[in-house]
């Protein structure tokens, strides 16, 4: 049996790396690196839930770890990699509203905000420090994912931002909510993402939103609410 205190220490370290991976998704310019970072982030999440399983012994956690590993570490990155190979762009250099440096500073602010907010909300619950902080990380990860979605230009980075955000939801779920419930939700969300991704794949996107819309219009997939 491994000592719980040691496991807690390792989880804390993993927390930091999860946040670092989110920060990298915000600031990295190479698309391949963003994807790798996302994969690593998902792997870290799987690791966290595995370690929690070792601590708590709930089999759902093991299941979750396996599921995350299969879908987010193997399947989804594989799909996206195929897209990246097809669209032949390797970098996303443009930022809207926020430069990476500012985003990183803002991220620290977001973490503090999540902490302040959740410490009010969970005042009544007797969460252990580790679990509470896990929730904080989950929430901040979600917010940082949103940050990616509006500050990066290329759709593919936005999609990765969304996925990272969803990782945040998962994290929050692991540490706060009842498990079976969240498990179902997560699977559904994952499926939605898969569908979304494959549809993107079908259209063949390779650039910013504006060009994407043009392309979709041309292919008559969707009118975008405007007359052609």
């Amino acid at each position: 049996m491994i000592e719980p205190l040691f496991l807690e220490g390792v989880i804390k370290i993993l927390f930091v790396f999860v946040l670092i991976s989110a920060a990298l998704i915000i600031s990295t310019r190479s698309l391949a690196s963003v994807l790798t970072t996302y994969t690593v982030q998902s792997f870290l999440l799987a690791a966290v839930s595995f370690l929690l399983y070792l601590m708590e012994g709930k089999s759902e956690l093991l299941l979750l770890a396996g599921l995350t590993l299969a879908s987010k570490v193997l399947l989804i990155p594989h799909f996206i990699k195929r897209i990246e190979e097809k669209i032949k762009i390797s970098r996303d250099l443009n930022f809207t509203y926020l430069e990476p440096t500012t985003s990183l500073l803002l991220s620290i602010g977001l973490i503090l905000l999540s902490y302040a907010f959740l410490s009010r909300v969970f005042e009544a619950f007797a969460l252990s420090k580790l679990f509470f902080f896990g929730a904080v990380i989950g929430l901040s990860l979600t917010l940082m994912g949103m940050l990616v979605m509006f500050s990066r230009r290329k759709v593919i980075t936005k999609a990765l931002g969304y996925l990272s955000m969803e990782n945040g939801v998962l994290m929050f779920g692991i540490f706060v909510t009842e498990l079976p419930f969240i498990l179902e939700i997560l699977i559904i969300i994952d499926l939605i993402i898969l569908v979304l991704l494959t549809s993107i794949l079908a259209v063949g996107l390779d650039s910013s939103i504006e060009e994407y819309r043009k392309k979709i219009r041309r292919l008559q997939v969707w009118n975008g609410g405007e007359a052609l």
Partner: protein
Amino acid sequence: MNTSFLLFALLNPAFALLAAPLYMALIRKVKAYAQGRKGPKLFQVYYDLRKLMHKEAVYSPTSSWVMRLTPCLNLTALLACSLFVPLIFVPEPAGGFGNVIVFLYLLALERFFTALSGLDAGSAFGGMGSSRSMSLAAVIEPTMVVAFAALAFVLKSLNLHEMFALTAGSLLPASPTLVLVSISLFIILIVETGRLPVDNPATHLELTMINEAMILEQTGKNLALLELAHAIKQLLLMGVLINTILPIGLSAEADAGKIAVSALLFLLKAGVLAVVIGLFESALAKMRLFRLPAFYMMAFFFSALTILIEVFA
């Protein structure tokens, strides 16, 4: 003043002075291997220093006493610094030596005068080096201070000797947060010693030089002193990192046998770290100058998170 500290004050600077050039050479050797070359001999830096010491100093007619003052002053500052970082054993603290802030500001003293001497000869290279070095040093400073503050947070002391007395001898780092602090310390080590991807120690191309540009006008024995100071700085920062992450074998007693074991182990650990640094450098390309603040921001984010974890969880 106690005997343990007096012994330390004699042994530690001497050890730093003697061992520092070895790791400069070792890193070069590792980089050479990574590039498929054979590389210099392990003692090459010692030979170089000896050769330089025998050469005369050449001064520009433009330069002033600032340039003549700097080499000795820098080595002085670094030798004083070597009293702050225990390399071979941890003494009982005395007279405020070991204060982490004094340590950081002695490094700043060295940087300040190097930058001034860069401007002294009136060459555009020197000015460029000083300007870049001071600018980048300013941007990395918050990371550096926060990383050392994190160290002070975790080990509950302001004194490096007291901190490492706490970790000395244990196999693993005292707290998981220390693993994170060490990553910050590693980045600081890379930045402060002017290594890739921040600065390239092997170049003399004007566009990429930072540290080399400042000492471009230094010659002969003065250059030797500056190089030696730089090597000691690297060794001391390596020492801080090693004592944080891998304190195994570090002796907290002033006992001859234990000191010998401790020193040997340190040489070994520093060797491993030097290999890691060499490989790290080989794996990376030089970053564009104005991309560096984002890289430093990442490092800052890391150190700040470390403290957040320490405080919140």
